[in-house]
């Protein structure tokens, strides 16, 4: 279990002092532009690449929504011009469709709630892109993620939370294994920099994207209508909404349209007996049923997670960590143990809004230990699959 191909001792791994051949992934946004500029300024030999992820890109961005438009490609190109590095567009639309969009739809169809950004990092930016980059002779892939890489005394590499916790993106990078991490460069997470400072820095560097709005939402759902997107791909199928007793309390037009912990949009005609709001507790795609109940029933005390990935050493035996259970979520102290290739996590205090399909990322202080995909949760009140 200690054999990591391209582990931190990899001679091509970024090391201080030696100029590296760096491939900067440039989305057209301010973060990746400043990251590329910093890498170039540090003396590395930088080449900018914009990933074309849509086979039929929209011409223009609409506010903060979407990405990968022709306008974004142009913004990335202009940033590369200003930084003074070569720039290319790589077509990864087919891989993105298979590994991210199809996966996103399939996960929802199975009643889970996927995180496509995480999948994109795992399969596209630090797999398809990284593999091609390394194949072409690049030492590292540089992105505008807010996360910190710390080099240890023994030459190893650790992934840590960014200095600015509010912008920290280590959660969506938790899927990176040691080899991927060995070739990663995150110039924004290495210093105490807030987003405002990044914008000011972009302005100073003459980068026109300095005032471009941040992108939110899911990049391949340009209008932000995830429900509409899923309905288009999965169709609609009417099913029951039931309470924890199994009593029908309403109907829905497709179980995949719900997320565990969701409160809005249930359209239940009559109030619960106790008069309190009801939340989605479970989604069962097999019988197309959505179970609802009170907030307390959402309290998760333990979970199992599959497909664990480790940033470094695989932990042995039960160990105490903190866990982040969803994007932008807080931390919960946990005890985690690897058993039969499955991660078993017991929470020190109950947590809500935990959906199968999301990632559990384990931290030791600010250090990312590893991650896995949540498969089942154990509730304080009811046990759910």
């Amino acid at each position: 279990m200690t054999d990591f191909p391209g582990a931190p001792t990899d001679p091509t791994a970024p090391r201080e002092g030696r100029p590296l051949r760096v491939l900067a992934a440039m989305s057209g946004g301010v973060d990746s532009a400043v990251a590329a500029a910093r890498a170039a300024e540090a003396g590395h030999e930088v080449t900018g690449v914009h990933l074309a992820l849509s086979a039929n890109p929209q011409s223009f961005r609409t506010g903060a929504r979407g990405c990968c438009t022709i306008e974004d490609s142009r913004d990335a190109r202009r940033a590369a011009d200003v930084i003074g590095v070569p720039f290319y567009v790589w077509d990864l639309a087919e891989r993105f469709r298979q590994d991210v969009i199809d996966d996103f739809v399939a996960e929802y169809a199975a009643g889970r709630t996927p995180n496509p950004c995480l999948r994109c990092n795992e399969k596209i930016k630090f797999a398809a892109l990284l593999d091609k980059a390394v194949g072409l002779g690049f030492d590292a892939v540089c992105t505008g993620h807010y996360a910190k890489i710390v080099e240890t005394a023994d030459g190893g590499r650790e992934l840590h939370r960014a200095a600015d916790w509010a912008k920290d993106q280590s959660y969506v990078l938790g899927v990176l294994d040691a080899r991927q991490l060995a070739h990663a460069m995150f110039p924004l997470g290495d210093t105490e920099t807030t987003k405002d400072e990044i914008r000011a820095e972009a302005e100073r560097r003459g980068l026109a994207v300095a005032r471009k709005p941040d992108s939110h939402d899911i990049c391949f759902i340009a209008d932000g209508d995830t429900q509409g997107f899923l309905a288009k791909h999965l169709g609609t199928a009417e099913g029951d909404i039931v309470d924890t007793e199994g009593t029908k309390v309403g109907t829905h037009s497709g179980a995949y349209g719900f997320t565990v912990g969701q409160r809005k949009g249930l359209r239940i005609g009559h109030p619960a007996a106790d008069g309190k709001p009801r939340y989605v507790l479970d989604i069962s795609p097999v019988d197309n049923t959505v179970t609802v109940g009170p907030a307390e029933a959402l309290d998760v005390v333990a979970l199992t997670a599959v497909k664990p990935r480790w940033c470094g050493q695989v932990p042995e035996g039960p160990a105490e960590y903190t866990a982040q259970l969803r994007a932008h979520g807080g931390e919960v102290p946990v005890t985690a143990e690897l058993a039969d290739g499955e991660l078993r996590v017991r929470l020190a205090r109950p947590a809500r809004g935990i959906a199968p399909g999301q990632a559990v990322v384990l931290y030791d202080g600010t250090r990312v230990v590893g991650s896995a995909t949540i498969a089942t949760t154990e509730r304080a009140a009811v046990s759910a699959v």
Partner: protein
Amino acid sequence: MPYLDHAATTPMLPEAVQAMTAQLGRTGNASSLHAAGRRARRVVEESRETLAAALGARPSEVVFTGGGTESDNLAVKGLFWSRRAADARRTRVLVSPVEHHAVLDAVLWLEEHEGARLEWLPVDAVGRVHPEALRQAVGDTPQDIALATVMWANNEVGTVQPVRELVEAAHEFGIPLHADAVQAFGQVPVDFAESGLDAMTVTGHKIGGPFGVGALVLGRDHKPVPQLHGGGQERDVRSGTLDAPAIAAFAVAGELAAERREEFAHEIGALRDDLVQRVVKAVPDAVLNGDPVPEGRLPANAHFSFPGCEGDSLLLLLDAQGIECSTGSACSAGVAQPSHVLLAMGADAERARGSLRFSLGHTSTQDDVEALAAAIGPVVERARRAAQPKCHTG
């Protein structure tokens, strides 16, 4: 810095730069009636005569435009509309599948918006259209054909079409034929009168002239429907103030292109042959696309497929060593598309993706070829490694 992308654009000739800069400081609209206008008009008309002579055309047949794309659109859409207006049955267009996008997208637009019916002329494995194929495509209903369009020489693989024979075949049925001669001019003998063509596209920046100026050489019997409406400056088929400085430079470049063509073709052809030999020596499984017979292809063109490679990887690696070339096919938002030319020639998608075009020009030297010969072997090897599927995607 080895520049091997002259088919994209070639450096302006010093003589053309001189002619253009001499005009840029002068006042005068060629349509004005006063002395300054007459002076500008004289520059335009002398340039028209020079260019006509270089192309084997009459001055009155030269219609100045904003470049190759505009000339192609004027010919294809303009002739479709004018011929259909004369006879409503004429809605068929015969077109080769290896055309430049300026023709290809124009006919596809006609199909989508104007009810044109496209008849794709088959090409052989080197991308050549045969006159017999054109006759077969005409079939029993020549009266429903608006026009035929086949490029003189292909911009990607350099295949030269049998223009004279294609014109003969089209004219047997009274069908006008347009040819995009953008790549052919200056490399193979281009004589409008001798070819018998009805319309022919040429442009400035591929022959050492400036960007943004071109011409449609147009038989005097034809009056395509204008694309740009306005002052009607050019025979009432093209409007817009004439760009006297660019036209003057275009004419100088055109004159020199015709004058130097034979010697250029001889010298550049030898350099190209050397390039091909050395690339194949360095990469034995490289496939030369297009006609292997020198007479059948542009003397400055070499186009290869490198099995197991992505064209964009090859381009990046060569670019990093200062060697500038092209995948040869059109880009959409910077993303290289699999070449429609290679696909039409029967290549599979992988071969179409993994190809590069090296095109020589008047500034090319033996050193450029040496640099490519030294770089191409290791570059192909590396690009192949980059294309290998990796294991950590599971």
